């Protein structure tokens, strides 16, 4: 009894502390606040959500059954189905869901101030993202680890399944393009960054050959060598940067770098996985986990102040990084970190086949998403500890603030943020870069933020090394996502083509491999190319498009979950998934409506296309802009129709789901539930 009361008091204290920290960050105006308040608020919210909300969902909504054998136990084959220790599954699952998304999104959304993004990351994760991951993991576990697309087909119907499939394919294309753009912008005219990123390719190959032929299967040994080589490549990059003749080989404009990435992407999709993809993935996973832990430690040691205001004037839609008002665009810009539809593919793929017991679902599904949300919080911190003037100078495209440093500084000063040309030059010199103006995409500003945090915590003399370490860290797992995404896109395309021609569906048939890889690479390569030639930086168009697509996929996953809950007679609990679903539908539909119909040329695709057409016809564009205008106009139209397509797909699935639910409640004949029979566990 005493024990129980003590527990109650502790949880009450955590709730009070969390509420106090949250009100401090929400109500502080004018003076800078310490990051410790944000970390405290986050930790308390996560703890309470995990202890109470997630536990309640597990016990009452899903009714998790510890005595039920999981697919890993029933179908154990020692390879893909295998009961595995829950911490190991947690590690696999987290490594799979945590990509560059939670780092880039918050950095871009920081243009609204630190508060809106932080609140959305916290609330979105505990009520939306973590719930989506957990229920999807549960439902897939009860269906032998079936994929989201298969579950959509089984539970809602063919239309839902096809929509999920097409949605996944398109989001992959957009995602890879925008990530490619982030890497290109980080490497543009930076011999240090370019040579370091280039070095990761042969390093991965050496490790691949080592693991395959020299010492087969010695994964840790090989990875350790790889990590050492990667760190050396950061030093070597610095040496190349100072070398008069060598640096020329790595000093390039955006366009050649984009073509290099396109060629690389094709090669990575066609080459056997053991040579490039798998070893690169090992290295990126260690780098990712190591750097995230290091960043958390550094932030806690250093406890820096946030310099960005809580809310900026850009909530009115005039933001330099991307156009559009706070609602709905902060919710679109931060997808991963709050809620990410892509996670549903992982939660319904590899992870359920490893679960030893259903009771691990809360920790793995809900817990891993909370950790990812914390990564997003750290990215937000790294962006907002920078002086706002510096943040905007790095992230504002030349198309908005002007190509000239003096113009850019004047423009940023006119917004009320202090920054000088000398300050930016000194910063660039400290970071070992030629310029940090208009380095859009989020990676350079995140790297500057991380370098200053690392530098202050572990020694200031090595800022340039820390900066390029951060760039290498971001690039290596962006490229992993790019490789893996292209490959998955290729599989999906081969699967679809296999319906028309059996031979094309064979994953080892080389002509089909080359054809489908080329189609996928051409798809994202096109968007990457347009993004690079766009004077507004491309990220401002591609990132919202990616956000809409990712939230749409999340909405489809929540539709499947809601349908299953209603069909299983749990209507009274259906709000658990229906509430985040309703929110996602509201934000994606509003965002899509504005992207298509807004008169603001920085928001509406058609408005921007018409504006550019008029200027082109009137002959007021300078020659360099006039030559690319037709391509930009075509692309704006294409993006508008793509957005329209996304919303149409989403609404078709929702209507389909609502009809199924209505029929289920009326007792009419519907597709039966597809979960497997109960088998008692023997473990």
């Amino acid at each position, binding site marked *: 009894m005493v024990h129980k009361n003590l527990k109650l008091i502790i949880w009450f204290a955590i709730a009070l502390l969390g509420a106090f920290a949250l009100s401090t960050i929400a109500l502080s105006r004018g003076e800078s606040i310490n990051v410790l308040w944000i970390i405290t608020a986050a930790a308390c919210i996560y703890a309470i959500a995990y202890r109470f909300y997630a536990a309640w969902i597990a016990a009452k909504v899903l009714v998790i059954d510890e005595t039920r054998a999981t697919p890993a136990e029933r179908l*154990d084959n*020692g*390879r*893909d189905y*295998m009961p*595995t*220790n829950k*911490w*190991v599954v947690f*590690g*696999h699952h987290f490594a*799979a*869901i*945590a*990509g*560059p*998304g939670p780092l880039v999104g918050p950095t871009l959304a920081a243009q609204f101030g630190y508060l809106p993004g932080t609140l959305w990351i916290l609330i979105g994760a505990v009520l939306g993202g973590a719930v989506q991951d957990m229920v999807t993991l549960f439902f897939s576990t009860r269906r032998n680890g079936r*994929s989201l697309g298969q579950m959509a087909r089984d539970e809602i119907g063919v239309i839902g399944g096809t929509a999920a499939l097409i949605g*996944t394919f398109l989001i992959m294309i957009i*995602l890879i393009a925008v*990530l490619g753009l982030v890497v290109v912008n980080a490497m543009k005219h930076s011999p240090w960054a370019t040579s370091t990123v280039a070095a990761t390719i042969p390093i991965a190959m050496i490790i691949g050959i080592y*693991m*395959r032929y020299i010492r*087969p*299967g*010695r*994964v*840790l*040994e090989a*990875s350790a060598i790889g990590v050492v080589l990667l760190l050396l490549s950061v030093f070597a990059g610095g040496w190349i940067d100072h070398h008069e003749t060598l640096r020329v080989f790595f000093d390039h404009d955006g366009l050649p770098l984009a073509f290099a990435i396109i060629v690389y992407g094709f090669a990575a999709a066609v080459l056997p*996985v*053991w040579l490039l*993809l*798998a070893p690169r*993935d*090992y290295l990126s996973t260690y780098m990712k986990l190591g750097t995230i832990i290091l960043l958390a430690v550094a932030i806690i040691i250093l406890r820096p102040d946030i310099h960005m205001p809580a809310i900026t004037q850009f909530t009115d839609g005039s933001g330099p990084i991307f156009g559009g008002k706070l609602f709905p665009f902060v919710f679109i810009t931060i*997808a*991963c970190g709050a809620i*990410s539809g*892509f*996670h549903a*593919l*992982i939660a319904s*793929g*590899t992870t359920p086949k490893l679960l030893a017991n259903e009771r691990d679902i809360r920790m793995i599904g809900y817990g891993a998403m909370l950790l990812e949300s914390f990564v997003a919080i750290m990215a937000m911190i790294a962006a907002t500890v920078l002086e706002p003037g510096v943040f905007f100078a790095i992230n504002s495209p030349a198309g908005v603030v002007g190509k000239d440093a003096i113009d850019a500084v004047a423009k940023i000063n006119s917004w009320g943020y202090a920054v000088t040309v000398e300050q930016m030059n000194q910063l660039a010199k400290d970071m070992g870069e030629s310029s940090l103006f208009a380095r859009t995409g989020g990676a350079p500003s995140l790297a500057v933020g991380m370098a200053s945090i690392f530098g202050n915590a572990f020694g200031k003399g090595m800022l340039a090394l820390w900066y390029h370490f951060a760039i290498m860290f971001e690039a290596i797992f962006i490229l*992993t*996502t790019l490789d*893996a*995404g292209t*490959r*998955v896109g290729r*599989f999906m395309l081969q699967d679809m083509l296999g319906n028309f021609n059996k031979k094309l569906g064979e994953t080892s048939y080389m002509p089909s491999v080359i054809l489908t890889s080329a189609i996928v690479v051409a798809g994202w390569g096109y968007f990457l190319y347009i993004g690079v030639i766009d004077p507004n930086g491309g990220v401002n168009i591609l990132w919202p498009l*990616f956000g809409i697509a*990712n939230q749409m996929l999340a909405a489809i996953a929540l539709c499947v979950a809601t349908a299953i809950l209603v069909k299983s007679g749990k209507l009274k609990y259906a709000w658990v998934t229906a509430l985040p679903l309703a929110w996602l539908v509201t934000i994606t539909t509003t965002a899509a409506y504005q992207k298509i119909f807004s008169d603001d040329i920085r928001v509406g695709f058609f408005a921007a296309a018409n504006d550019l057409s008029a200027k082109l016809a009137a002959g007021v564009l300078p020659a360099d802009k006039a030559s690319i205008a037709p391509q930009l106009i075509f692309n704006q139209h294409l993006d508008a129709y793509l957005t329209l397509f996304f919303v149409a797909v989403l609404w078709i699935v929702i209507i389909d789901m609502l009809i199924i639910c209505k029929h289920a409640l009326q007792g009419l004949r519907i597709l039966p539930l597809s979960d497997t029979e109960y088998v008692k566990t023997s473990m």
Partner: protein
Amino acid sequence: MLNLTKMGHFLLHSWRGVRQLSGDDAYEQYLKYHAEFHACTIDAMPALSRKEFFKLWQDSQWQGVNRCC
């Protein structure tokens, strides 16, 4: 003394976890699995060599969506 033993256990467990997480011990796990389920059946096949197993294991890891945004 007791603490030292405890710490030793903790380190050993962590090391096992790291090996399992990275797939470093995948072959040993496979051998165990093979000995348990296959070796005693009539049509038992000899266990794969480390090299053969690693090829199959690595390829099976990259069949679906395993990396996210």
